[in-house]
């Protein structure tokens, strides 16, 4: 069969979202960011919100998310994304406003902004990439680095006596009155990707129905470069070491029993 007989619209089973452009991504092989970007783009497109979305990028590896998804964006100072999103949503209440943040951005330098935006019940969605390491700056210890995990600033492994404990911030966020939905997902298998997409869709829908309340989707992620593991081994390491500390599933869904 000739190639032109195969490549036809009716035979299409999968394509990347139109708003994902062809810019080469700066992410390392095996990084979870690419998959999560694609899910965010798919959901925006499927909800018909391309013209009605304003995204906020963090400081961290995802700082350049605006180079890959063709929506309107604002790039925040480190940790401040939820404050930006608060104002954008209040001034543009009909828009889908979301932040995309890493663990250092959200759970270290931006802890106050994260907690207060969620506690005010801002109608925003927070996509939270937790890979337990500072990727962009070269692999330093993150607030979410687990015990024994080696990073550039805990080269002999995180020692709770020296460095304190990993901040499981979504566990705290779920108890805030302003929260509507907190879930913890991953994207290392096809099944996990489908679940994560559903979670992102739910979070985005929550932002648009006028009922208020913040939604947080944590994605336990890999950083093969920072972890110094092959992509395949990174997935395995994540399942064996990160998941026990950060178990997957919904932490709270206030719409579940309604």
């Amino acid at each position, binding site marked *: 069969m000739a190639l032109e007989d195969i490549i036809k619209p009716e035979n299409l089973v999968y394509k990347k979202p139109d708003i994902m452009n062809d810019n080469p991504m700066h992410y390392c092989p095996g990084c979870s960011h690419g998959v999560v970007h694609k899910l965010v783009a798919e959901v925006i497109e499927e909800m018909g919100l391309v013209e009605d979305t304003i995204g906020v990028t963090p400081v961290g590896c995802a700082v350049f998310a605006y180079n890959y998804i063709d929506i309107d*964006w604002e790039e925040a100072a480190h940790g401040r994304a939820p404050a930006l999103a608060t*104002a954008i949503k209040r001034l543009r209440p009909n828009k889908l406003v979301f932040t995309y943040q890493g663990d250092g951005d959200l759970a270290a330098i931006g802890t106050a902004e994260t907690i207060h935006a969620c506690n005010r019940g801002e109608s925003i969605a927070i996509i939270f990439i937790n890979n337990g390491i500072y990727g962009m700056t070269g692999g330093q210890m993150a607030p979410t680095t687990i015990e024994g995990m080696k990073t550039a600033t805990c080269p002999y492994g995180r020692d709770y006596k020296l460095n304190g404990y990993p901040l499981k911030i979504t566990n705290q966020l779920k108890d805030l009155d302003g929260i509507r939905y907190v879930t913890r997902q991953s994207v290392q298998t096809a099944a996990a990707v489908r679940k994560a997409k559903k979670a992102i869709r739910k979070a985005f829908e929550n932002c648009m129905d006028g009922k208020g309340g913040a939604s947080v989707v944590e994605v336990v992620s890999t950083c093969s470069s920072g972890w110094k593991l092959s992509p395949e081994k990174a997935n395995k390491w994540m399942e064996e070491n990160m998941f026990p500390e950060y178990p997957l599933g919904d932490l709270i869904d206030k719409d579940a029993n309604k």
Partner: protein
Amino acid sequence: MSEEVKLMKGNEAIAHAAIRCGCDGYFGYPITPQSEVMETLMEVEPWKTTGMVVLQAESEVSSINMVYGGAATGKKVMTSSSSPGVSLMQEGISYLAGAELPALIVNVMRGGPGLGTIQPSQSDYFQTTKGGGHGDYRLIALAPASVQEMADFVGLAFDLAFKYRNPAIILADGVIGQMMEKVVLPDFKPRRTDEEVEKQCPWAATGRKMSRKNNIITSLELKPEVMEQNNLRFQAKYKQIEENEVRYEEILCDDAEYLLVAFGCSARICQKACEIARAEGIKLGLLRPITLWPFPTKAIAGYANKVKAMLSVELNAGQMVEDVRLAVNGKVPVEHYGRLGGIVFTPDEIVNAVKTKLM
């Protein structure tokens, strides 16, 4: 136009003027001596009338970043604070300048450094006019000397901020913020519609219309050759502002042999000092910079050919005096007189300083 004269504090005038000039959003955090700004807004509840958003943030860091978020969508947004709070905002102000966003910051100065005092001061002149945050940027800085100017400068600051896509600051002090004076508030101007905002600010992040490229508000550029060009573009804009937007007031300057240079509440006290000096036969005049940046360098340079000496009168240890000296360039002596830590000078003290330092 009905000219209804009202009596109120400078801080209250800021709040009423914000509502009347079509401000879309105020984000703040309480701090003395400026808390009446947000208190007044919360009492008036403008979200019920004009639709203006008013929000108390969890910190000054957050409030300036809310301003940064709101400004990115083309909305007229502002914050207010006092010195320690404005120090916390410097990161956000640098981002606003770097992303070329219009916004208004109000600083009702108190004495420092550190937690300092809640009494008035003018010791944030350097912070305001020389940087404060990181990087080569400028703020359009207006210095009100009356409650009337507190009201008038809100609209002016927004106009300038949008004209040049640059943050503007009203640099007031505890005296101007707290004192009550008569004021005629500006006429009500409706908030712009979303369509008007999009027309005025085609660069804004408002949700990407398929008819245009997506708008990205950022100060980040990793390629140094591009970042240098960005910086040169900012510098060209700053030069344009320096050429077009200098504002100052001359009081009793025509025949002056000695010149006071003072802004804000110091200028008010200097005005009285001029009257006292003239009653004693000393021809004393006052030049009051209204814009601290751009600074009235040319006007002051002009007086260097006319007067015998100048005195920069400031509630600090000598900050603006450096700019006066740069303008004068050694032609006549330029001295400084100041009080520190929240102490405010009397007119007699200033006349005495003229006699001892200039004559």
